[in-house]
């Protein structure tokens, strides 16, 4: 059964990666990290600190955003598009 969960997880991951909408938050995260360098330059003495802080903020913030957005879409999309039917009609337990 665990193998099946792994297969489903891999498929979900593959879908998410190929669905290019998700590249937007990643691009944003990169943008903010890059901005950190400039903002760091105008700060006095604490350049390193600003870069680290903004970089880490971008990672955690957009990590949460991506998780939430994929999470919201995941089940509802499967139900809406009826892709769930072909999965649930196979030997997969629901819980």
């Amino acid at each position, binding site marked *: 059964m665990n193998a099946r969960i792994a297969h489903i997880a891999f498929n979900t991951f*593959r*879908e998410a990666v190929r669905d290019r909408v998700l590249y937007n938050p990643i691009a944003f995260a990169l943008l903010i990290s890059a901005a950190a360098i400039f903002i760091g330059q105008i700060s006095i003495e604490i350049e390193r600190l600003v870069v680290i802080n903004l970089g880490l903020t971008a990672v955690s913030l957009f990590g949460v955003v991506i998780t939430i957005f994929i999470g919201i879409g995941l089940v509802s999309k499967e139900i809406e598009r*009826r892709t*769930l*039917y*072909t999965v*649930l*009609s*196979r030997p997969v337990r629901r819980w």
Partner: protein
Amino acid sequence: MAAIEILGLEKTYMVGFWHKRPKRALHPLHLAVQDGEIFGFLGPNGAGKTTTLKMLMGLVFPTAGTATILGKDWIDPEVKAQIGFLPEQPYFYDYLTAHELLDYYGQLSGVPGRERKRRVEQVLERVGLTDIKGVQLRKFSKGMLQRAGIAQAILHNPRVVFLDEPMSGLDPLGRREVRDLILQLQQEGKTVFFSTHILSDAEALCDRVAIINKGELRGVGSIEELTKSVQGKVEVVWQGTQVPAGMKSLGAECHVTGETVRAVISESQQDAAIDALRRERLRLISIIPVRTSLESYFVEKLQHSQTTAGTLV
């Protein structure tokens, strides 16, 4: 042995926002499908065909009743490994290719690795999907998706195959191929249960059919059994402008158009009509069934149910 046994499955939905009223989608249904049979499940749109199939697949929970597939409880995961299902208007993961999709379904159905690769190629060829390597499913046409759907239903070599409207979205050639495929599946010893509203498909394929309307079963049996009571009509066309006396005595209404005459008579009078034409040495052009006998039966059953419903109101 009965491959599928439906024991009083029924479904009632609650409709309405404030005042919830029960709406019956399916009255208690009792049905048995024998092993190795092609069974057609017929009914007009909205009759409850898809609801029944969804319940059998465990996608919708029945209000009451139970079913067995291959002698086991129908929601047992072990049973699911031995059945294939094609949903109505199948729709799959947009960003996968057909190979990846089938590989995924193969994994879920527990087909071992090396075998899976071989099977995927084999089924794709079987449903007529070639030259699609690397093409994502969102670029597929409706007919191609339908074929991919059929491929995933038979991928893991199931013993019972459920097909919901397998011919929809296919061109005439495609329909023919699917028909042949269903017959092949039967030859391999599989049981096929398919729903359709296209009667000619059912007539060409099914060992037995069930007719359902407004959630109620109207008749079950082989096509011959069901259509014994009704006979279809045939249209006879012959050359000339004269109507032979023998034809008139059959009570046929004849219409003369240009150089041909057409008459609609019942199937049983067909031979008498041919004799009448031959006696007069008239050239017969065609005899075409106006309506197949299954269709007549179907229409009769549906009209019957409408009139009874009408009297209740």
